[in-house]
């Protein structure tokens, strides 16, 4: 079996081309010049790194370019890779790039073609030129949402049909998305994750998950200083009692089980901020945008004049706050 007479014996590898050539010089490289001449109208630019030539081709002419290279002994499509350039430093241009690595058995060299496209414009498929492009283009479609026109069966390949989003896009979270929402719609609220139902067959038809990663359950985030910053108000949490709602030595009135008059009794002889604090509902529910102490501090410092924000305290708290603030003014 160990025969030495091969049908395709590769030539010696070409010496690495020197660095720092201009696009025009690369186009004149004997390796590619003959082919580039034939499709010169479709070759927009040329780059070189580590002896590897990259030719930037016109997206709409890629099939012609590919066929020209195939006729010029580059008969083997090694690799077809998508790239999302959206976070590339200093990059301006169409968001996605697709690289085609071609190999010539006769000359034993590789050449890379690249086209750029945005999320909406499909690239003409080269699967009619090389059969191997079929799955590789499907993978690029699956991972990046880049479409390919005239592809025989452009379906997802690694992710399942109906999966939302394209994992290798830079805005797809590394931790993944919550696919539980698609499986258990009764547990996860609407918008809590990707929804089943899109076919995922065309880029337009894919329901891409655009929102932030949702955290279920509530509570004050660790390390949060309610006195300084205002959180997003969370009206749906009004009345929910947080873990922090416990009486302390400095604030014995910080107990949601006490009535308002009992709390004000405990807060006799302290400063205005503490008195206002005692008038709150003591649940630390953050419906106003602070915890109870933070809201009191904001009122005492005049950061806010709105006394109607304490939803669980209702009109009782509102009246008490009005009275306390009026007393402080007259004093």
């Amino acid at each position: 079996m160990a025969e030495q007479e091969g049908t395709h014996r590769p030539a010696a590898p070409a010496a690495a081309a020197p660095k720092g050539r201009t696009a025009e010089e690369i186009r004149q490289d004997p390796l590619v010049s003959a082919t580039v001449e034939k499709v010169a109208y479709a070759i927009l630019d040329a780059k070189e790194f580590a002896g590897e030539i990259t030719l930037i081709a016109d997206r709409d002419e890629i099939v012609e370019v590919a066929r020209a290279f195939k006729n010029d002994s580059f008969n083997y499509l090694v690799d077809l890779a998508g790239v999302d350039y959206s976070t590339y430093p200093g990059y301006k241009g169409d968001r996605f790039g697709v690289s085609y690595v071609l190999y010539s058995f006769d000359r034993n060299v590789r050449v890379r073609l690249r086209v750029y496209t945005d999320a909406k414009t499909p690239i003409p498929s080269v699967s009619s030129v090389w059969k191997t492009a079929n799955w590789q283009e499907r993978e690029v479609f699956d991972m990046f949402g880049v479409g390919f026109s005239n592809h025989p069966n452009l379906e997802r390949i690694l992710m399942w049909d109906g999966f939302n989003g394209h994992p290798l896009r830079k805005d797809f979270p590394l931790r993944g998305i919550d696919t539980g929402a698609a499986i258990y719609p009764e547990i996860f609220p609407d918008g809590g994750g990707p929804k089943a139902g899109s076919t995922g067959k065309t880029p337009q038809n894919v329901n891409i998950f655009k929102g932030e990663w949702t955290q279920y359950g509530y509570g004050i985030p660790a390390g949060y200083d309610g006195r300084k910053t205002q959180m997003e108000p969370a009206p749906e949490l009004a009345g929910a009692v947080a873990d922090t709602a416990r009486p302390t030595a400095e604030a014995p009135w910080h107990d949601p089980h006490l009535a308002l008059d009992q709390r004000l009794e405990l807060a006799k002889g302290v400063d205005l901020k503490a008195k206002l604090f005692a008038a709150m509902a003591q649940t630390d529910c953050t419906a106003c945008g602070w915890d109870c102490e933070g809201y009191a501090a904001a009122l005492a410092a005049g950061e806010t004049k709105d006394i109607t924000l304490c939803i669980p305290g209702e009109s009782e708290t509102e009246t008490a706050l009005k009275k306390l603030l009026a007393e402080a003014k007259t004093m």
Partner: protein
Amino acid sequence: MFDVHEMEVNFGPQHPSTHGVLRVILKIDGERIIEAKPVIGYLHRGTEKLFENMAYPQCVPHTDRLDYVASATNNLGYVEAVEKLLGITKQIPKRAQLIRVMLSELQRLSSHLLWLATHALDLGAMTPFFYTFREREEILDLFEAYCGARLTLNCMRIGGMPDDLPDGWLDDLEEFTAKFDPAIDEYAALLNTNRIWKRRTVGIGVISPEEAIDWGITGPPLRGSGVEWDLRRAQPYECYPELQFDIPIGKNGDTYDRYLVRMEEMRQANRILKQCIPMIKETPAGDIKAKISRVIRPPEGEVYHSIEAPKGELGYYIISDGKTQNAYRCRVRPPSFINLQALPAMAKGYLVSDLVALIGTLDVVLGEVDR
């Protein structure tokens, strides 16, 4: 005449002969396959996404998990691609190169032994399984002696090797290489002229050289179709130019030829190992690392580098933006994924039992297909 009954059946994903979690939707008429549609992705772990979010050296253990029965070659392809990006390919010491070559060739043997065992088992021959695992065990012991792991080796670093060879390792290797050639003769005696084996493999899944290139097939399946192309010879890396070995090719492009090609490749790998032992004894001990910066931040650029893995051309396409210690994009060009694509074309018109032979002869590993 006869009423034609077309039936659609699922082959896999939990089927012992699909070598993992490959699912093939078969449209069959009786036993004959009208259409086969592979469904993959059951083992997708987003390795390429992980590569974008880890520093270059952190990615090496993750490459182990691609083709998990040939992790040394996965490591080799990755570290060489990063070295090419850094421009330090020529600085790797000779000793490190030789250790890399030895581990890769041992890995090729271990991968081919596993292929032979399971391929023969799928087609009804049980004895080769016991014979090949006897030798594979010794290879895994050699790996364990070198790096402590048997399957997921994580045995290479950017710029060199993590450790020098342990004492006595070369003697163990020499002992192994001496008895491996007779072992291959044993496997060959079981199968080469076995009438049942030949009935199951000769003329099954024929693929012409032109078609193989069109489908992008590489590795033993390409050579089985008569294309003498091996990246170790065509675009040599490490110290392969100094080593003597032949590239076996087939004539008919059927399953039997691919079997013979892999058998001969094992002999050639053993021949390479035998040459490496005296060569490494001439190199200074401990010279296993190039002097490179501890922080790996390659210049802005992109490289494609590929090596001859046991399954075919394993390529890494890395884009560096020159600003961070992470790859901006790291694409793996897995041989199994591309080779598997030709399965529907090869299976059409054959029997369901031949599909088992075809999956075996393509030697796909689903960890690499799905990444």
